[in-house]
């Protein structure tokens, strides 16, 4: 799809395009074909809506894909409290009623609500010094899914879309980016609809549209006819939309073959104890199964952390099933030899205030909060960064959203400086100025 702009040939706009291309050539490996395609497009004075475009740099993606790395994002929707999980302040006015317990890593204590995770902390790197920039839910959800603040000009892709692009399996039976009962609507962003997430509902079952009741022979005939017509149309019109439609349709057809990966009933009976008998536990088992089946990125959500009132009761309700499932997931991945190549990210969009309000709640807070990483080369058994005595400010080693995403990409074997194009604007995977937190990597 091409969007015409009113800029004449040889204008400053085109100079910018050429500069951008030069910059791209200097920073990333771009295939000749991709470069020519992009160059022709810009020389014609048009802005190429090439969904990440020039840098499609297939070679980079193909190189990354060889590593077969995966990512599971455990999304704590609403913002889990750092004080009730990983950064406790017992005895301080901000501390609340929960008490810390020892973990299997000397010196790293966790909340008493997390006894199972306490035994898995040797695999986990906690970041106690997150300092991010979006304090409310919509902005925070966008930020912690994309690594960027919402912008009117650029639709940034989610972490899942990036991982799907660089670690996904082109033409595989299963989607590369699956979301199980989770949030975030940035999707593929400027990478295009190809990298949109495949959404699974709260029960972890495939949506009804994914199941065909048609006789396979009849369906094949229909498919042939549809392909014929679409091919002609695409040839005649050179329409990206038609191409996208065909790709989506093909992906849906292929999914029929991979549907068994979404069935967990048989395994659940055996795994219930490991993951805990909860819906979140089921979702985590599904995530493991999908990763084992080759899916590059699975996001698993748990709702309701927005505890402006009765924060401690809410966390007592939410954290135990979450930590049980998370601990089970880590143990299961480890036992199956998958943890080496699977990054497990634990985060929500925000942290919660040190002060406890008059509703016994904690409000939104992003000046100092916690996230956690495990697997895929993450150096477990550590708490990175510290907060001050009341958990109000980061005391040392602040980690921004950009740093967080840069570190995630690095762990996943994806260069965070790779630039994709949003129209003509080069956009690195992690924000300019972000740094990889090397201490978190083994």
């Amino acid at each position, binding site marked *: 799809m091409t969007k015409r702009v009113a800029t004449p040939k040889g204008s400053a706009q085109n100079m910018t395009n050429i500069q951008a291309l030069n910059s791209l050539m200097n920073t990333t490996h771009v295939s000749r074909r991709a470069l020519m395609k992009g160059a022709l497009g810009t020389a014609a004075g048009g802005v190429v809506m090439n969904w990440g475009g020039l840098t499609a740099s297939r070679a980079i993606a193909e190189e990354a894909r060889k590593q077969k790395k995966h990512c599971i994002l455990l999304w704590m929707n609403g913002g889990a409290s750092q004080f009730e999980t990983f950064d406790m302040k017992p005895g301080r006015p901000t501390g609340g009623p929960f008490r810390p317990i020892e973990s299997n890593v000397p010196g790293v204590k966790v909340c008493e609500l997390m006894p199972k995770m306490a035994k898995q902390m040797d695999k986990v790197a906690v970041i106690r010094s997150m300092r991010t920039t979006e304090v409310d839910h919509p902005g925070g959800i966008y930020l912690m899914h994309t690594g960027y603040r919402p912008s009117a000009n650029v639709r940034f892709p989610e972490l899942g879309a990036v991982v799907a692009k660089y670690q996904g399996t082109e033409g595989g039976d299963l989607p590369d980016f699956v979301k199980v009962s989770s949030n975030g609507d940035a999707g593929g962003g400027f990478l295009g609809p190809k990298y949109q997430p495949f959404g699974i509902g709260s029960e972890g079952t495939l949506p009804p549209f994914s199941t065909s009741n048609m006789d396979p022979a009849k369906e094949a005939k229909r498919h042939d006819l549809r392909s014929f017509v679409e091919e002609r149309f695409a040839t005649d019109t050179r329409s990206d939309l038609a191409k996208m439609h065909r790709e989506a349709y093909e992906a849906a057809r292929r999914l029929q073959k991979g549907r068994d990966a979404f069935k967990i009933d048989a395994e659940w009976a055996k795994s219930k104890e490991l993951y805990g008998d909860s819906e979140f536990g089921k979702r985590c088992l599904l995530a493991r199964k999908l990763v084992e089946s080759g899916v590059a990125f699975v996001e698993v959500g748990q709702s309701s952390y927005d505890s402006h009132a009765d924060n401690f009761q809410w966390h007592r309700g939410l954290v135990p099933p979450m930590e049980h499932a998370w601990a089970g997931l880590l143990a299961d991945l480890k036992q199956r030899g998958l943890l080496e190549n699977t990054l497990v990210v634990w985060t929500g969009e925000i942290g919660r205030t040190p002060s406890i309000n*008059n509703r016994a709640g904690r409000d939104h807070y992003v000046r100092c909060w916690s996230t956690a990483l495990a697997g895929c080369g993450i150096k477990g058994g550590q708490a990175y960064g510290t907060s001050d005595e009341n958990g109000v400010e980061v005391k040392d080693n602040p980690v921004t959203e950009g740093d967080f995403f840069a570190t995630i990409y690095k762990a996943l074997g994806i260069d965070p400086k790779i630039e994709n194009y949003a129209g003509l604007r080069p956009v690195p995977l992690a924000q300019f100025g972000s740094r990889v937190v090397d201490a978190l990597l083994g």
Partner: protein
Amino acid sequence: MFTPAKPVLRYQLTFEGSWPMAVAFVGPRRLVAANQLGHIFLWELPEKSPEFKVDPKSDQKAPNVWPTRQLVGHTNEVTRLLVTPDGKQLVSASLDHGVRVWPTDGKATGTAGVILDEDARKREARRKGKKETTTEPSATVETQTACEVLDGHKEWVYALGMSGDGKRLISGDAASQVIVWDLATRKPLTKWTGQSWNWIMAASLSPDGKKAFVSENRYKRDDFDVPTPGLKLWDVAIGKETLDIMKVQFPKYNPSDRSYGGSQMWRKFVANGLICTAYSPDGKLLAAGQGGETDTGKVHLLDSETGKLVRDVASHQYGITDLMFTADSKHVISVGRDTCVRVSQVSDGKEVAVLGSPRGGQFKDWLSAVALSPDEQWLAATDIAGIVHVWQFGG
């Protein structure tokens, strides 16, 4: 006999620094209150209030007196305080997993200087542009450590109840464990567990101590994983359920259900948990209060034989926090997040007295617990603003 006439605010006891969460009378004008840090203090209230001039600019509407004693032992929030009918033993339950029995005439083990007006000091420091608050104690109190620990819970103890004669106790924790104790021997008589995913939020014994009324609940695990609460009567002697009151209210109720759809059946009845219960002294009625932050918390009055709803009384905006029957079973007294004490007539549900006033919405503190003196002339309510309000009935 309780008469809700002419209540007068006699004292506003300053108890700042942490939210006061429990209160009980150990004598006509002798009261104890406890906070989220686990500190328990005892006040001896003079029969005649000290001279006090109301400052229209101040929130203090009645005189303060400082406590005389601190009971030292709990290390986390005290959730409930109860006193035996003879006034000789105080029982406390706590989030530190403990239930403690304190002699109310226990010997002092020492003295300590305590600061109980921390918030006022902070305000004063801010007004003067100072970072540090003053450190001289508000009062010097006796300290008492003598107590006995009833060992049996491994989780937060939310629930504590006592039989009418004070011989039996019931306690319940966040691991769904219920224990009925013989107070004389300090030994468990019976134990049982509720639905494994639930927390025992409130428990009361019948006047003769033979039946237990238990409310269990927990906050949801996800929007689509909402464990079902329980409200049951139990036979204490054998630890067996005798009446499932939820089933009486909702014949299609399924205690194993965790679905969002299932929760819609009971959500209105339970709100965010029936967090306080009482057995009427005449044994005929049960009371359960809708708590957690909710739109409007009501007290369900239920028939103790059938479990059927007799009527709802009281109406606390944002939820109820504590309730009790008067000795004649004719009134229910409840407190809540609307910063009001409400006295409701059991016979017709009529609200016959309101003590305090709504302070202006959900961000304006709440009353956390209520107690009546043995002669039912005095009423105390703890306020998370760091106050214990004490009213006297009959002017």
